[in-house]
C-alpha cells in the first residue's frame, strides 16, 4: 500500500493540510486506489506547507504548497509513485534548507508518525534512555554536564548543574517539570516537537527523572497550543500502554509517570517560578529566589524545571555521548539550537544548527530575506524580551556570550525579521505595553514602570520634550532592570534600549517630521 504523508502539525493545518488530506482520501477512493495517509509532523519547512511526501526507492519525495485544488492533477501524474508535478520538490532530504541543518533534537520530526512507538524506536528512539539506565543516575548527570547543554529557554543556565542540585537534594518526592509555555512571538519549536515527535520529550524527561530520582513529571503547555496539548496527551497514553511510563518505566524497576497541564493565556507563566505557582493552582505570580526550585520547587519539593528544548536534547546526548554533542557549537555555547525564522521572511521555518551561526546566515542563506522583498531593517532575536539588531550587526554570531555582550539575548532562539517600514519607536512602545499587559503585578518597576514607559514613549512620539523624555525612558529601564524579580520586568528594557541605541532616528525629531508632512 502506498503511503502518503500529510502533516497534522498545527501550522500545517493553519495552511490547509486537513483539507488536502481529505481531498487525497476522496480522490483515491474515486480512483479505486489503495493508499494509506500518514499524518506526520512538520519538517519545519513551514513556507512550503502543506508539504506532502511519498515514499520512493531513493527516499521520500516532497510536494510543496499543495492545495486541495492540486490533488486531482497530482493523481493524474501518479505522484503516489513519485510522478513529477509542478509542485514537486524532489528528494525532501536533499532540499538545501533541510540538508544544511544539523538536526539532532529534531532529527525525527516530520519523518515519523508522531504517535507510532514503532516508528520512534525504528528511528533511534529510547537509545538514550536505555543508556542512562545502564550507566546509572550519577553518570547520566555527568554526561549532561559534560555535554555543555545550557537552558534553551533563554537563561542559559547549565542543565547538568541543575540536575546535579536536584539529584543531591533530599526529599520524599521529587518532580521534573517541562516548561512548554512557549509564549515568545517568533518561536514555535516546542509546538513542532510536541506535535511531530512527542516521545522525544517523554524520553528526555524520563532520563532527567531517572538521573535525579523523580517519579512524577508535569508538562505545562500553553493554552494557545490546543493541538499540541491533545497530541501530547495521546502520546502519554501510548507511552503508558507501551510500558514506558508507570510503576516500572521501561522495565527499569523505577516508577515514572507524566501529566500534561494546560496554561491559561498568561505569558508570565513561562517564567519558571510563576509556572510552578500556576501548576499548584494559584495565580501565576513570580516567587523570589532563593529558595531555588531545584531545592523547593513544585509543591515545595526538589524540582528539575527545564525548557522543553533542554529536555529534548538529552536523549541525543545520552545516545551519542557528551563529547559528540559538545563538538557542535562555539565558546561556552555547546551543541545545537533550534532557531526559528519568523516575521517578514521568505522561507520561515525551523533551522537546527550548532550555536555560533550568524544572524545573517540564518535569515539570508536559509530564510531567503524578506517575503515582501523590502530591505531588512531590524531583526528581533530571542522573543519579546530580546533586542532589535540593525543591519550592521547581522554578522553577529548567535551564542549566549556574544548576544549578552551586545545587550541582547538568545532566548528561545526565535528571529523575527522586520522590513524597512518598521517604526522602532512603535516597537519600543509595544515592548512596554506587552509588559504592562502581562506583568504578574508583583514588582512595582514592572507593574507600574511598564505603563509609565508606554506614556513616556507616547510623549516622545508626539515630539513633546523628546530629550528629557528619552533620558527618562533610560532611567526607567535602569530601574526595571535592577528592580524586577524576573525576566519580564528585568528584560523588557532590552528591546527598548536596543531600539533607542540602534535606531535613534526613529525617536528624534518626530514633531519636526510630523510638521513637514
Amino acid at each position, binding site marked *: 500500500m502506498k503511503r502518503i504523508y500529510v502533516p497534522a502539525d*498545527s501550522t500545517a493545518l493553519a*495552511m490547509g493540510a486537513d483539507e488536502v488530506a481529505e481531498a487525497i482520501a476522496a480522490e483515491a477512493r474515486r480512483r479505486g486506489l489503495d493508499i494509506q495517509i500518514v499524518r506526520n509532523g512538520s519538517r519545519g519547512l513551514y513556507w512550503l506547507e502543506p508539504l506532502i511526501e511519498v515514499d520512493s526507492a531513493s527516499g521520500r519525495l516532497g510536494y510543496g504548497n499543495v492545495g486541495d485544488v492540486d490533488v486531482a492533477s497530482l493523481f493524474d501524474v501518479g505522484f503516489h509513485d513519485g510522478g513529477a508535478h509542478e509542485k514537486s520538490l524532489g528528494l525532501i532530504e536533499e532540499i538545501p534548507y533541510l540538508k544544511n541543518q544539523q538536526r539532532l533534537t529534531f532529527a525525527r520530526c516530520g519523518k515519523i508518525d508522531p504517535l507510532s512507538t514503532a516508528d520512534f524506536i525504528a528511528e533511534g528512539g529510547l537509545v538514550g534512555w536505555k543508556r542512562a539506565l545502564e550507566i546509572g543516575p550519577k553518570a547520566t548527570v555527568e554526561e549532561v554536564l559534560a555535554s555543555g547543554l545550557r537552558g534553551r529557554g533563554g537563561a542559559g543556565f547549565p542543565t547538568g548543574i541543575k540536575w546535579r542540585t536536584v539529584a543531591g537534594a533530599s526529599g520524599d518526592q521529587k518532580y521534573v517539570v517541562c516548561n512548554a509555555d512557549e509564549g*515568545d*512571538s517568533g518561536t514555535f519549536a516546542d509546538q513542532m516537537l510536541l506535535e511531530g515527535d512527542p516521545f522525544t520529550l517523554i524520553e528526555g524527561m524520563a532520563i532527567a527523572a531517572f538521573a535525579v530520582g523523580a517519579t512524577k513529571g508535569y508538562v505545562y503547555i500553553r493554552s494557545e497550543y490546543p493541538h499540541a496539548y491533545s497530541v501530547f496527551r495521546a502520546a502519554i497514553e501510548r507511552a503508558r500502554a507501551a510500558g514506558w511510563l508507570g510503576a516500572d518505566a521501561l522495565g527499569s524497576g523505577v516508577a515514572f509517570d507524566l501529566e500534561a*497541564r494546560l496554561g491559561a*493565556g498568561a505569558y508570565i507563566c513561562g517564567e519558571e517560578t510563576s509556572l510552578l505557582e500556576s501548576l499548584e493552582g494559584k495565580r501565576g505570580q513570580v516567587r523570589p529566589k532563593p529558595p531555588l526550585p531545584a531545592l523547593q520547587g513544585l509543591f515545595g519539593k526538589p524540582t528539575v524545571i527545564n525548557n522543553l528544548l533542554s529536555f529534548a536534547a538529552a536523549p541525543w546526548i545520552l545516545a551519542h555521548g557528551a563529547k559528540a554533542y559538545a563538538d557542535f557549537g562555539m565558546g561556552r555555547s555547546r551543541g545545537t539550537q533550534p532557531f526559528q525564522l519568523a*516575521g517578514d521572511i521568505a522561507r*520561515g521555518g525551523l533551522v537546527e544548527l550548532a550555536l555560533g551561526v550568524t544572524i545573517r546566515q540564518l535569515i539570508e542563506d536559509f530564510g531567503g530575506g524578506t517575503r515582501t522583498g523590502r530591505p531588512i531593517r531590524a531583526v528581533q532575536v530571542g522573543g519579546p524580551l530580546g533586542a532589535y539588531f540593525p543591519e550592521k550587526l547581522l554578522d553577529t554570531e548567535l551564542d549566549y556570550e556574544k548576544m549578552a555582550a551586545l545587550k541582547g539575548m538568545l532566548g528561545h532562539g526565535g528571529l*523575527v525579521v522586520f522590513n524597512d517600514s518598521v517604526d522602532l519607536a512603535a516597537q519600543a512602545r509595544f515592548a512596554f505595553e506587552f509588559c504592562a499587559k*502581562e506583568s504578574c503585578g508583583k514588582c512595582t518597576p514592572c507593574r507600574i514602570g511598564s505603563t509609565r514607559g508606554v506614556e513616556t514613549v507616547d510623549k516622545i512620539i508626539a515630539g513633546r520634550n523628546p530629550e528629557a523624555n528619552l533620558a527618562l525612558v533610560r532611567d526607567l529601564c535602569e530601574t526595571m532592570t535592577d528592580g524586577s524579580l524576573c525576566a519580564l520586568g528585568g528584560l523588557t528594557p532590552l528591546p527598548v534600549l536596543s531600539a533607542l541605541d540602534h535606531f535613534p532616528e526613529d525617536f528624534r525629531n518626530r514633531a519636526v517630521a510630523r510638521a513637514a508632512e
Partner: protein
Amino acid sequence: MMRRAAWDAEEARSLIAARRDEPGAMLPILHDLLDRYGYIDDEAIPLIAAALNVSKAETLGVVSFYHDFRRRPVEGALMKLCRAESCQAAGCEDLVAHLRDRHGLGVDTHERGPITIETIYCLGHCAVSPTAILDGKHYARLTREKLDALVAQAKGSAQ
C-alpha cells in the same frame, strides 16, 4: 460557531468534584468549566472554593489572573487575531485597520455582537504570519481577502 452548554450549577458541581483531589486542581477545573460553558460563571466561584477548601477571594484571584478565564459567554463567533511581533512584522496592524474600516469591527471592544474579535499574543505559526483563530480553527498567512472570507463565514455561522 462553537456550541456551548448553558450554565448548570449541579453539573458544574460534579465536574468540580471529579478533579478536586488532583494536586493543583484549580486550573484543570477551570479549564473543564471553560470547555463546557465557554466562560466561568459567577456561581462557579463559591463551588470551586468550597471543593478545594480555599477562600472565594483566592478563587476569584486565580480566575481573574488568567486571560483565558472569561467571565461572560461570547455571543456569536469568536476570532482571535495575533498581534505579537512576528505578526506585526507581517502586517497584522493593517488587518486590524481593515477590520475597522471595511467591516466596522473593532478589536478588544468588549461589545456584544455576531462577531467578537480579540487580540491574542502568538499562536506559534510565526513562520507563516499573520495568523488568527476563528472558532477554534487556525489560519495562517492572512491577507485582507482571506480575512474578508473569515468575517463572512463568521457572520454566516452566527446567524
